[in-house]
């Protein structure tokens, strides 16, 4: 599949060419097939959701994109090149950042420090230079702090800038985690269940921030989510997985009317 023409969405965003493409991915853990022959693409500037019932292989899929798992079969194409097997930190350097289903922040560190750690892929000075904090190291710190502060402003978390994240409520921790991922200035942002365990108000806030990130920074977003309502509201295109297979792919409306998807979510009567 080649890069299709770019187009403009109803709300005025430009969706560009394909930035990442998964071709016939299969992932096995011993005898268990977690992902079976799945292909889909992610286009520049879009919000792409991966949904499916529990155990459908969504998180495995995200871990494949992220480089944490290496599929036994299939190819991953990123920015028009076939990607060789890589370690997660190498992939981070390519401009892919992520958040986790179970929050993975440094609990004892402040919000600001956590977000600053997201800048590590952009730091060039070494440990010794940073220890003396002179010349380039100082300049770098100032630049990074500036970016971190812009993110803090963007996510409206000024009031918890200096608070250790372990003391924050869950919804705010999720927001800090998004902040840390944004600090890497990613081209592709992976969100693993960004709204899990949130109440309605927190979900609304988070949805707004995801849309704003996409809108303001033009970041391409791939997200996994359980909450169908949220997914259908904010994503441009949706991949539906069930038992490691792809059973649907398209706009929220197309997916909603897909019989396989309805069966997977509501169950099929046994007669």
């Amino acid at each position, binding site marked *: 599949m080649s890069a299709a023409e770019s187009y403009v969405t109803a709300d005025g965003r430009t969706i560009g060419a394909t930035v990442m493409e998964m071709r016939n991915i299969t992932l096995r853990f011993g005898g268990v097939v977690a992902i079976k022959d799945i292909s889909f693409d992610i286009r520049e500037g879009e919000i792409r959701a991966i949904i499916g019932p529990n155990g459908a292989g969504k998180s495995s899929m995200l871990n494949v994109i992220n480089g944490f798992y290496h599929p036994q079969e299939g190819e991953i194409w990123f920015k028009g090149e076939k990607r060789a097997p890589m370690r997660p930190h190498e992939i981070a350097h390519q401009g892919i950042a992520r958040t986790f289903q179970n929050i993975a922040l440094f609990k004892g560190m402040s919000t*600001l420090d956590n977000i600053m750690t997201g800048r590590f892929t952009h730091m060039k000075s070494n440990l010794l230079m940073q220890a003396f904090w002179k010349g380039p190291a100082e300049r770098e710190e100032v630049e990074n702090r500036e970016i971190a502060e*812009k993110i*803090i*402003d*963007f996510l409206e978390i*000024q*009031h918890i800038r200096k608070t250790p994240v372990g003391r924050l409520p869950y919804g705010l921790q999720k927001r800090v985690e998004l902040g840390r991922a944004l600090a890497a200035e990613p081209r592709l942002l992976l969100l693993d269940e960004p709204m899990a365990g949130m109440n309605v108000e927190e979900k609304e806030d988070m949805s707004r921030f995801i849309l*704003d990130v996409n*809108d*303001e920074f033009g970041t391409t977003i791939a997200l996994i989510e359980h909450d169908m309502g949220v997914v259908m509201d904010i994503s441009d295109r949706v991949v539906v997985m069930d038992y490691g297979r792809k059973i649907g792919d398209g706009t929220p409306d197309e997916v909603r009317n897909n019989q396989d998807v309805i069966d997977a979510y509501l169950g099929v009567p046994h007669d």
Partner: protein
Amino acid sequence: MTTGAGLVEGLETFPKILARNAERFGSRPAYREKAFGIWQSWTWADAAREVNALALGLLDMGLAKGDHVAIVGNNRPQLYMAMVAVQSCGAVPVPVYQDAVAEEMAYVLDHCGARFAVVEDQEQVDKLLEITAKLPGLEEIIYLDPRGLRKYDHSKLHPMAEVEARGRERADDMQADHARTLQSRLDDRTAAGTATDTCVMLYTSGTTGRPKGVVLSNLNIISTAQASSEFDHLKASDSVLAYLPMAWVGDFIFSMGQSYWTGFCVCCPESPETMQTDLREIGPSYFFAPPRFFEGLLTSVMIRMEDASKLKQKLFHHYMKIARDVGPRILDGESVGLIDRLRYALGGLLVYGPLKNTLGLSRVRVGYTAGEAIGPEIFDFYRALGINLKQLYGQTEASVFITQQPDGQVRADTVGVPSPGVELRIDDTGEVFYRSPGVFVEYYKNPDSTADTKDAEGWVATGDAGFIEEATGHLRIIDRAKDVGKMASGALFAPKYVENKLKFYPNILEAVVFGDGRDSCTAFINIDLTAVGNWAERNNIAYASYQELAGHPQVYAMIQDHVEEVNRSVAEDEMLSGCQISRFLILHKELDADDGELTRTRKVRRRIIEEKFADLLTALYDGSQEIFTTTEVTYEDGRKGAISATLEIRDAATVPATPREVAA
């Protein structure tokens, strides 16, 4: 040299004072604001340049003399400067409460006929766009923060930076009449400003009915600012934290009037949530806060002390006792003896100093509280720490100041002596009247209300009942004049008096007392979720919501204790002993301005609450033990929902009147 109108010549308007400040205090800070984690500052010279650029831009867009310009947003230096820019063009700024919902805003904008609005961000733009259909007169919206607004239709919208840039660019362009430049047109407008021109129009929050637009002239504001700055010896080196709504007259006097008059610096917090941190970083020397703020702060100190180590608790309680004994007297300049003075000094080193620093009140030289009565314990706590907290009594219609407490004559139960230039009069019914240079011009487009409030000689009815203490000349306020009523027995009924006593308990956030024309008094209570929640945590009481905690039997028992204690204290006052509470209930929801139960300045709207909870009120008087009720609530985004609950009604013990012994 003063003009006939009583103002210093050449300083009759804000733009003119700004020109003086730019010259005299050019390199001193006029504004500070925390942005991206760093305090940014504007010197008076910067402020003058920015105001000029914005005024040019506004003039270029066609702002006419006498136009009203709505200003909506949190406290931001640019919005303060926008008000002066508007005045430079000969137009009138109308600050609007930033948390008002769209319909409230529509009323105000429609009433004042604003053609222009200067707003802070997307939230406010959205509100205005929602109501544009109802506001055909609103032509241009200028916004400060462009975030999220990129894709909006910009036929009416303009970023403030662009308006300023265009103003600067076209300053020297010849105008259509080929005679003058834009700058010279602006200079003419600014120079034409006089003392009697309208300085600002502020809408009263309105405890009853529709808000009214209070027209205040330059004379009102500037003479009040001058007199009050001199009263407290405010200096250019002072600083103040501007965090109260810009639409409130107090903020206009403190952050505009007094700041311009004396040249002190106005600091704006990063966001409303960071106010506490910013307060500590700025350490203002002049500070204003409503009693609610001081109550909340004290509650949080006490809660945190309970979690502190044993040693710290001991130190705290030991030295706070000393402070309560001698602190207020030391502050009033009385002699307390060498030993006490030394003990107090040691306490200052160990406890008061660090505590004041944590609270951000270390440098407060003059602090005021007003709006509501403050609990004597709370008031004394801050005075004991050596913070010069005083009370003042004021109104929008008076450009704030009616009475205030001079240094050294500070008490919790009075509101002070008449401010400089203010005359006071108490009429037969006990209502307080005043007359001063600060007295407002009129209610905009409302001559009937103007005539009701202000008589031909310039006396204004405050609507409050009170009396002047003969010995000290201090004014004491009892209650709202219209709320003071008679009970069925003919005894005096002063609900606010009792409510305030109830609210002095940290566990009680809000109370509404009923009893006018009835044979006994009853009350609705709102618990304070922070204080009671903390108590619940320490006592292992699980709860999921405000409603559940409010209905908990142990909470009821605790509140009952408070009510009965208040009854005993009310009984001591012979005149008001009839106001003891015989039955009460704890409301299932917090009273909220979004539901119309409180004003935007968080005063209770008695009539509305009475109507809305009529079923509960009936139950309080018909002897039932519990009542099922459903209440409509409005969420922050404007959607409506309903909550229902079964509320318990408790009887509280009352005591017979026990007048204080006069003589032994």
